C-alpha cells in the first residue's frame, strides 16, 4: 500500500494574486510545507506537511497566505471522532506510541471557568490600586510554628507568579535566556527543568530554581549552589508516572555539555528516582540537598496532581520540603505519550483545594508553601488559585505564547519554526531574547495590574489576605461534590 491513509489536517491557501514567489515561506518552514518548484519557477505548498504554526502567514510580506482546517469530514459519528480514527491510522502505519506536546486539548472541565470572584459593594470599601499601595510580594518557604520560631530560607517574589520548569534541550538556549531575563526583570524565578544550567545562564542564579530529576542531568555541587532554590522533580502534570526521554537527535554539542552526557545519546529520566521509593527516602534526598547547600536554600518537591494528592502532599511536607509544586493534568510538556497526557491525573484546581484543606486540617499548612501550575492562562486564574490556597503559581505555556508560540503542539519534532522548542541553529536564531523577554515582562506587568484590580475590588490590599480565602470564590455549574472538594459555595449562596 503506497498511499498514506492520513489526509492533511490543514490547507494552505495561497492567494496567487498576492504571492510574489519571494520564497520567504520556503525558508521559514522547517516542516517543508512550502517548496520552490524550479521547473514552474514558483512557490507551491504541500498541505500534508503543515502543522498550523502560522510562521509563514506571519512572515509573508505580501499577505498571500492563510491556513485553515482541512474540511474533509469523516461520516458523522459521535463515538468515532476524526481524531480517534486518525490516531489509529498513525499507529497502524508505525506501530509506535503516539506522542503529543503541550497540554491536553481534550474538553475536560476547566474549573477556573466555573469559579467567580467576589467584589465589595457598600458594606466594605473596594480599593483603587492606582492610588493606594497594593502588596503582591510573596515569600515561599517553611514558616515557623510560632512567631518566636526560626524562619528558614525563603524565596522572595515580587509577584506570585514563577516561570515553570523547561529544560535546555526541550527548548532552545535563546528561549531559556528569554525566560531567565524575564524572571530577573520581574523579580521572580525561572526553573531549569532537568537540563542543567548552561554557562550563559549562570548569571541569573538569583532568579533560578535548579531542578533535580531522576536522571540527575547537569547536577553537581556547583549547580546546586548556583540557584536560589532546588526543586526535586517527582512528576509532571502532562505525564504523571512517566519519565522523560530527550531524544538523541536533540543532544547536540551544547546540550551534551550542559547535561554532561555523550553527544547524540538519549537523555533518559525514568519515572522513579531509584533512591526514592517512599516518603522516608524522599526525606533523604531533600536532606542530602539541604546538607549540600548548608541549609541556605529552600527545597521544593514537584509532583503531578493525582488521585491521592492530599495524602501525598502531607507526606512531602513532613519529609521536610519547604515548597510543594503541584502540576495539574492540563499542564504542558515538550513531549509525552498522548494517552498519558490525555488520560492520567486530575485538574489542578481540585488538587490544590484538596491539598490546602488537608494541610490545614493537619495543622501543618505553615510548614510548606504551595505552588500550583498546569495551565494558568491569565491573571484571574492566578487570583482564583491564590484564593483556593496557592502561595504562588507556575506558568510555562503562557510565557511561551508571549514569546511567540502559536500552540501547534509539535514540540517533540524539534522543528519549531518560532525558535522555541528546537535546537536547530537556523531556527533558534529567530528568537531574540531581548524581544522575547520584553514580551514576557509585558505580560507579567499587565497581569500584575489586573491582579491588583481584582484584589482591590474585593477590598483586599495584600495578596497575603487572599491566600486560602475561599469565601472570595463561588462556584457556577458545579455539582455538590465538586463544590465540597473546592471548599466553596455555589454562586448565590
Amino acid at each position, binding site marked *: 500500500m503506497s498511499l498514506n491513509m492520513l489526509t492533511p489536517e490543514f490547507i494552505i491557501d495561497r492567494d496567487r494574486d498576492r504571492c510574489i514567489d519571494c520564497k520567504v515561506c520556503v525558508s521559514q518552514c522547517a516542516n517543508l510545507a512550502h517548496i520552490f518548484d524550479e521547473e514552474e519557477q514558483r512557490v507551491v505548498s504541500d498541505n500534508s506537511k503543515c502543522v498550523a504554526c502560522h510562521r509563514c502567514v506571519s512572515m509573508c510580506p505580501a499577505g498571500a497566505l492563510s491556513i485553515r482546517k482541512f474540511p474533509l469530514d469523516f461520516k458523522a459519528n459521535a463515538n468515532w471522532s476524526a481524531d480517534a480514527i486518525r490516531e489509529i491510522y498513525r499507529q497502524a502505519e508505525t506501530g509506535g506510541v503516539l*506522542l503529543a506536546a503541550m497540554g491536553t486539548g481534550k474538553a475536560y472541565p476547566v474549573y477556573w471557568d466555573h469559579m467567580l470572584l467576589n467584589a465589595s459593594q457598600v458594606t466594605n470599601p473596594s480599593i483603587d490600586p492606582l492610588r493606594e499601595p497594593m502588596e503582591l510580594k510573596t515569600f515561599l518557604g517553611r514558616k515557623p510554628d510560632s512567631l518566636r520560631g526560626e524562619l528558614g530560607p525563603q524565596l522572595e517574589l515580587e509577584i506570585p507568579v514563577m516561570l515553570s520548569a523547561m529544560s535546555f534541550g526541550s527548548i532552545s538556549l535563546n528561549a531559556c535566556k528569554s525566560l531567565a531575563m524575564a524572571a530577573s526583570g520581574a523579580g521572580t524565578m525561572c526553573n531549569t527543568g532537568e537540563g542543567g544550567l548552561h554557562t550563559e545562564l549562570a548569571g541569573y542564579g538569583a532568579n533560578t530554581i535548579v531542578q533535580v530529576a531522576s536522571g540527575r*542531568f547537569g547536577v553537581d555541587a556547583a549547580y546546586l549552589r548556583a540557584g536560589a532554590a532546588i526543586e526535586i522533580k517527582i512528576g509532571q502534570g502532562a505525564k504523571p508516572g512517566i519519565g522523560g526521554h530527550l531524544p538523541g537527535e536533540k543532544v547536540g554539542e551544547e546540550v551534551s555539555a550542559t547535561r*554532561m552526557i555523550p553527544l547524540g545519546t538519549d537523555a533518559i529520566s525514568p519515572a522513579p528516582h531509584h533512591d526514592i521509593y517512599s516518603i522516608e527516602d524522599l526525606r*533523604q534526598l531533600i536532606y542530602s540537598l539541604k*546538607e*549540600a547547600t548548608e541549609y541556605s536554600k529552600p527545597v521544593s518537591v514537584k509532583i503531578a496532581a493525582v488521585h491521592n494528592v492530599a495524602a501525598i502532599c502531607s507526606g512531602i511536607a513532613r519529609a521536610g520540603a519547604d515548597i510543594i509544586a503541584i502540576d495539574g493534568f492540563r499542564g504542558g510538556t515538550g513531549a509525552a505519550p498522548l494517552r498519558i497526557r490525555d488520560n492520567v491525573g486530575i485538574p489542578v484546581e481540585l488538587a490544590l483545594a484538596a491539598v490546602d484543606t488537608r494541610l490545614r486540617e493537619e495543622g501543618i499548612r505553615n510548614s510548606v508553601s504551595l505552588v500550583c501550575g498546569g495551565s494558568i492562562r491569565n491573571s484571574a486564574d492566578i487570583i482564583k488559585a491564590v484564593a483556593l490556597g496557592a502561595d504562588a503559581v507556575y506558568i510555562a505555556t503562557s510565557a511561551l505564547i508571549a514569546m511567540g508560540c502559536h500552540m501547534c503542539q509539535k514540540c517533540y519534532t524539534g522543528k519549531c519554526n518560532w525558535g522555541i522548542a528546537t535546537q536547530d541553529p537556523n531556527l533558534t536564531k529567530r528568537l531574540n531574547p531581548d524581544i522575547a523577554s520584553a514580551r514576557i515582562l509585558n505580560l507579567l506587568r499587565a497581569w500584575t495590574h489586573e491582579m491588583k484590580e481584582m484584589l482591590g475590588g474585593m477590598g483586599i490590599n495584600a495578596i497575603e489576605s487572599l491566600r486560602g480565602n475561599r469565601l472570595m470564590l463561588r462556584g457556577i455549574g458545579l455539582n455538590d461534590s465538586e463544590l465540597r472538594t473546592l471548599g466553596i459555595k455555589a454562586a448565590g449562596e
Partner: protein
Amino acid sequence: MFELNAAGLHFTELNRKVRELLKDGAEEIILKNVGGQRYIADGITGSQKIYIEGVPGNDMAAYMDGPEVTVFGNVQDSAANTMNSGRIIIHGSAGDTAGYAMRGGEIFIRDDAGYRTGIHMKEYKDKKPVIVIGGKAGDFLGEYMAGGIIVLLGISSGHEGDIVGSYCGTGMHNGVIYIRGGAEAYRFGKEVKTEDAVPGDLEIISGYVARYTEYFGGNAAGIMSHKFQKITSFSSRPYGKIYAH
C-alpha cells in the same frame, strides 16, 4: 590530621563540624565511631582527605566534588550519589545504589555492592566515572548506564555462581561493564551485548586491578589471569524507535 568523635552526634552536627574544619583549612580529617550518620562529605569540594571509622549512613559523599574518602567498614545506601569527582575507597561492602548518576571520580569497593550499583552513571568527554567492585554485585548493575566504567571482580567473597545479579545493564545506553569470569546470558538486560574483553580492555582493567590491590592487597596478576567479559549497549538510543511522530 584532625580527629572528630562521631559517637552520639546527629548528622547535622557532625556534618557541620566537618564543614567547619574544611573551611578552616583542614587537609585530613579522621572521623571515629561513625554509626549510620547520613550525608557525610555531602557536597564538599576540594582535594582533602577524610577517613571514616565505622559505618557511614546513606548518601555518603553525595554531590562530592574532589575529595578522597576512605571508609574502614561498610557503607550504607546511595554512597557517591551524583558524585562529580574525587575518590571513595571502601574497606568493606556498599549498600544499594552506590554511584547513582555518578558523573566522575572513582569508587573502590573491597567487597560486595548492593542493588542498582552505578545506575544512571554518565560520562562527558574525558570525565569518566569508575566503580571497581571486589566482590559481587546485586541486581540491576549499571541500569540506565550512560557512560563510565564498572569493573566487577568477584574475588573477595566466597560465593558460588554468577557474581552479578539479574537485569544487569537494563536500559544501558553507553559506558562499559567488565565482569571477571563473566556471567550467564540470562543475567543481562535486553539492551546490552556481551563479548570477551580484548587486549585494549584488559589494559584498562589491569590498571584498576593494580589500584585495587594497592588499596586492599591481593595478587593483581592472579586476578588478571581470568577471562573478562565486556558488556556494552547495542545502541545509544535504546528507546528511539518506540514513538510515532
